[in-house]
């Protein structure tokens, strides 16, 4: 399998000396072109740190990350961000409150020297189901779901091959979550994108991803396919616990 994204024995350590925190401790994963890969875990499991390490927002203290066969340099080069883009968890925090949607979307185009910006901005808004009428609004004039659509549009406007999704729907209501998940699903099919998606919600990851990894305490607990998950073929206790918990409350601890 030729992997588009190849992470080998990734370690991420914050701080030094006795206060050092090992957020990620030896994670290895491969994601093929066009695949959708999920990372599931609870808070503090290091799942988001893996994503942040891929796009250079967290330091790689050991191990390597390869994209299309070449090792990534730190800091990342500009062309990396044309191939890999990220959507963050909280649409209320990740958009500049005093920039219009137009400015949010035009800025990456200007940085990367794209032409035909006018058309691209309008196209990006149409693609995420908002339409050109949203172009000159400010974030506070948008609902949570609309903001997350703008964040997706911002990520996609550079026509990347890989999209890193960090809990893209956990700040949204259930009905809005369904809309955003459908949007992401449709965009991936239309454009053959590769997704790496992080979530604490096993059902969301099972819906979106072909393969997934369960993380706990900075380590990979288990890697399994969607079919294995459906067949409840989890081999570790922790994954089974997550599976049980995802069905809601049960009275007795059995």
């Amino acid at each position, binding site marked *: 399998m030729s992997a588009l994204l190849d992470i080998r024995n990734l370690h991420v350590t914050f701080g030094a000396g006795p206060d050092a925190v090992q957020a990620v401790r030896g994670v290895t994963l491969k994601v093929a072109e066009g695949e959708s890969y999920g990372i599931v875990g609870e808070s503090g499991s290091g799942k988001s740190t893996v994503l942040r390490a891929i796009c250079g927002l967290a330091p790689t203290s050991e191990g390597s990350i390869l994209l299309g066969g070449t090792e990534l340099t730190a800091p990342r080069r500009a062309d990396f961000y044309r191939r890999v883009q990220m959507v963050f968890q909280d649409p209320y925090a990740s958009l500049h409150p005093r920039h219009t949607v137009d400015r949010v979307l035009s800025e990456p185009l200007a940085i990367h020297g794209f032409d035909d910006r006018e058309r691209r901005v309008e196209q990006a808004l149409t693609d995420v189901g908002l339409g050109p009428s949203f172009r000159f609004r400010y974030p506070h004039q948008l609902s949570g779901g609309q903001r997350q659509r703008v964040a997706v549009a911002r990520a996609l406007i550079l026509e990347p091959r890989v999209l890193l999704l960090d809990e893209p729907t956990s700040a949204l209501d259930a*009905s809005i979550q369904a809309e955003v998940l459908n949007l992401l699903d449709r965009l991936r099919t239309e454009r053959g994108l590769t997704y790496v998606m992080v979530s604490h919600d096993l059902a969301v990851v099972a819906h979106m991803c072909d393969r997934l990894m369960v993380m706990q305490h900075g380590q990979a607990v288990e890697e399994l396919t969607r079919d294995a998950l459906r067949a409840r073929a989890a081999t570790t206790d922790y994954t089974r616990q997550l599976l049980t918990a995802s069905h809601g409350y049960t*009275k007795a601890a059995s």
Partner: protein
Amino acid sequence: MSALLTVEDLRITFPTRQGPSEVVRGVSFTLGRERLGIVGESGSGKSQTGRALLGLTPPPGTATAKRLEFDGIDLRSASPKQWRALRGGRMSMVMQDPKFSLNPVMTIGRQIMEALAFHGRSGRAEKKARAMAMLEAVQIRDPERVFRAYPHELSGGMGQRAMIAMMLVTEPDLLIADEPTSALDVTVQIEVLRILDALVTDRGMGLIFISHDLRLVASFCDRVLVMYAGRVVEELKASELDRAQHPYTQGLMNCLPKIDNDTRPLPTMTRDASWAL
């Protein structure tokens, strides 16, 4: 079944520049010693409903009702003194995030003992014993350490248990839990709910469980009120949720991704303007 709490036509209004805005519009229900769930999405008025029951509608908002009775006491005309005796003593509330609702500069033990002192227990030894017993009851393995700990020294799950302990130590008749487990990890969430479940059952309390998570509420409560735009659109038994009549309830049920079936795209909701009428 005698009603512990009766709410009739509860309305909560906030003044805005565009004139008064009614966020809760005529909510009525009765509660016995049972577990009642209130479900809705953000802005549905579910949290405001819960707060109004404790007289905690934040000013300049105002809450009015035709009837608001707790165990024979008319809450609408309760004096501040009566409220202080009720709140934390006979009815208490567990908030969403222990990080923001515990006092950061007071140890857990002192906060629990303060609640006891406020509601008429005197002896220090007695208060400490009761606080420790309560911490054990919420399955904190090392109650001595937690008793002396400050909130920032505890994990989210521990903090939430400590808050539940603090709210239950006065043995209230009614507990209002506003998203008590939403800030917690799924596996911890189940543990905290088990504790809550056991305490509610053993002590015969009434519980109002407010949450956005329909699946969780359905599996935890006896009865569910579904709120939309400040109104109760449907009331049903938790076990009969799959027989929901209202399109909003059905939509909420269907739009969740499920591990076992692959509906693609997920059904989304078309909000009918008439639901909000």
